[in-house]
């Protein structure tokens, strides 16, 4: 009799466990519409490919299908926080992917941290995103590093001595990157001055007329692609002949579509280029991506691909769907081979140390210029 009860208990426990893990729910909140919709859509394309290549996660010797719930944060900070709250409270997700801009990642990260659900952003580079947070991780490098690399590149390659910096006052990423650039560029002995605008502005003629009156040799654009393309166009129309330099916010096909011949020669840092040899996984990823979408992969998709696999990897190592256990497994990630480079999280930090690639717009195409390793 006692044995019978034990069997019943064990069977029901097994059934309960099986009922519990019929699917793994992962949330995704990206900038699918709004002025930076290109970033979100490229990221989502990366995740869709990752889901196709790895649709299940192995828990307790059983392959459990993964379901990714995507919500649109419209590139808006308040909306990004709402999305994170909805994913955790209503969709009961065990981890969140995205957002890809720093302002949105800061807002969404505050909610994820408070509710103790791990969040992996693919491309939010501002240091504040992960600072003093246990549950927030990123698949990309940090702006402190990016700012230094850009300043070095401007000083050595462009031989820049006087730089006009266009700062978008509404974006944490832009303000941060401009500051890290300034700090490093001042060390070289370069001169610079700042000009301000706001996300969504389309007319920069007044700022440019003011900036060009001071004869800069380089315009540094730490903002996002839509404004960068418009600033380049209007700067050339006002007779600027110097260099353009930008950060990873420039990396979208719209930059060239909108900017046309005006962005020719623009150089920017980013995380990934299909010709850069970043990890043994890069080549297979490029092949799979081209086969799936019939175009070359972009950095946002590549890092979103990495973020998805990072989370699945952590779930498998944790062998659990408890968000806190997943967080611990994520924090212990060592030598994870992502398609955009190896990822290891240092103790008490969600920031991997990774190489950056520098891209130049040449003949209407983003061409690999060089890979910079820290």
């Amino acid at each position, binding site marked *: 009799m006692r044995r019978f009860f034990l069997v019943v208990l064990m069977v029901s426990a097994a059934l309960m466990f099986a009922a519990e893990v019929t699917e793994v729910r992962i949330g995704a909140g990206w900038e699918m519409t709004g002025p930076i919709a290109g970033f979100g859509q490229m990221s989502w394309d990366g995740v869709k490919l990752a889901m196709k290549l790895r649709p299940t996660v192995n828990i307790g010797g059983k392959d459990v299908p993964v379901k990714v719930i995507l919500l649109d944060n419209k590139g808006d900070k308040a909306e990004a926080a709402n999305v994170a709250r909805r994913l955790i409270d209503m969709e009961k997700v065990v981890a969140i992917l995205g957002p890809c801009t720093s302002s949105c990642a800061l807002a969404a990260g505050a909610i994820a941290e408070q509710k103790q659900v791990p969040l992996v952003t693919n491309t939010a580079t501002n240091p504040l995103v992960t600072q003093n947070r246990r549950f927030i991780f990123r698949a990309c490098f940090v702006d402190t590093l990016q700012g230094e690399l850009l300043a070095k590149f401007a000083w050595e390659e462009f031989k820049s001595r006087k730089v006009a910096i266009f700062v978008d006052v509404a974006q944490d990423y832009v303000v941060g990157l401009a500051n890290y650039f300034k700090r490093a560029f001042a060390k070289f002995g370069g001169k610079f001055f700042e000009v301000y605008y706001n996300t969504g502005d389309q007319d920069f003629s*007044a700022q440019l007329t*003011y900036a060009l009156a001071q004869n800069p040799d380089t315009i540094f654009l730490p903002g996002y692609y839509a404004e960068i393309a418009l600033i380049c166009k209007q700067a050339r129309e006002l007779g600027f002949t110097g260099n353009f330099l930008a950060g990873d916010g420039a990396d979208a096909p719209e930059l060239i579509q909108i900017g046309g011949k005006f962005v020719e020669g623009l150089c920017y840092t980013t995380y990934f280029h299909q010709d850069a040899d970043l990890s043994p996984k890069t080549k297979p990823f490029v092949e799979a991506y081209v086969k799936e979408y019939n175009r070359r992969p972009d950095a946002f998709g590549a890092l979103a691909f990495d973020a998805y696999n990072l989370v699945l990897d952590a779930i498998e190592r944790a062998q659990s769907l408890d968000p806190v256990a997943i967080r611990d497994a994520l924090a212990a990630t060592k030598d994870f081979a992502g398609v955009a480079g190896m990822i290891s999280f240092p103790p008490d930090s969600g920031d991997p140390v990774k190489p950056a690639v520098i891209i130049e717009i040449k003949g209407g195409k983003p061409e690999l210029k060089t890979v910079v390793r820290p």
Partner: protein
Amino acid sequence: MRLSDFVQHLINAFSLGGIYALIAIGYTMVYGILRLINFAHGDIFTYGIYFAFYGVTLFMFPWWLSFITAIFFTAFLGALIERIAYRPLRNAPRISALITAIGVSFFLQNFATVVFGGRAKSFNPQTGMYPVYFLKILKLGDVRIRLVTLITLSIVAVSLLVLVWIVYKSKVGMAMRAISKDIPTTRLMGVNADRIISYTFMIGSSLAAIGGILWAMTYPQVYPYTGMVPGLKAFISAVVGGIGSIPGAMLGGFILGVSEIMIVALFPSIAGYRDAIAYVILIFVLLVRPTGILGVEVSEKV
């Protein structure tokens, strides 16, 4: 500031103000006749650009044909919106029509997101949208003028003349002015008020489409929210100039363009907050002269 920089700022200001003026004229016309603030005007502007974009990319029209069809389609869209959303509310309280206008605006934005996608489309001569010589830059010493700016300014001037002629000299214009005073009485005089109101919407919307195409030539992209900020600025221009007055809307557009550019030029450190400048001007005008600069005080009959 050097003289050439100052002149350059002035030209930038007229380039921006010209487009504000063009959209504001459409805004103010509808208000002048129906006393309705058509908040969807900025979104009709967006659709004008989309129509021009798809005329070239989807239907392979030459640029001039796609511009003309875009203007026609936008005019038709304006009349359609009036027919579906505003006409049933003709006798409802004014606030209902205002709320409907906001609803129409949201609908148009989200419909565009679903149908055309959230990503920006480029409006460039490289994609065949218009010939490269529209991008020509004229040089006068150190000062540079875009050809598009000159085109914009001449279109503003021509539209103003044509509109003033329509409103003050033509039969339709007479009917428009009559409707703006009193719709039921106008009907008794044998005027088909609904048709005249449709005409008004068509004229206003085609001005929005022209403004949109010129805007996209200067700022070469289109996405579902392109028209939001220009629409808002045009609304402010119309109020500043005196809502309901066509020359007032034009004046308001230029005032807004010049003050935005000049404030950024003189105080570069507050350039990030230039949208706030438009609101400050709006509040100032509403406090000092609520009817706007060229507006006339209308006394309500009791």
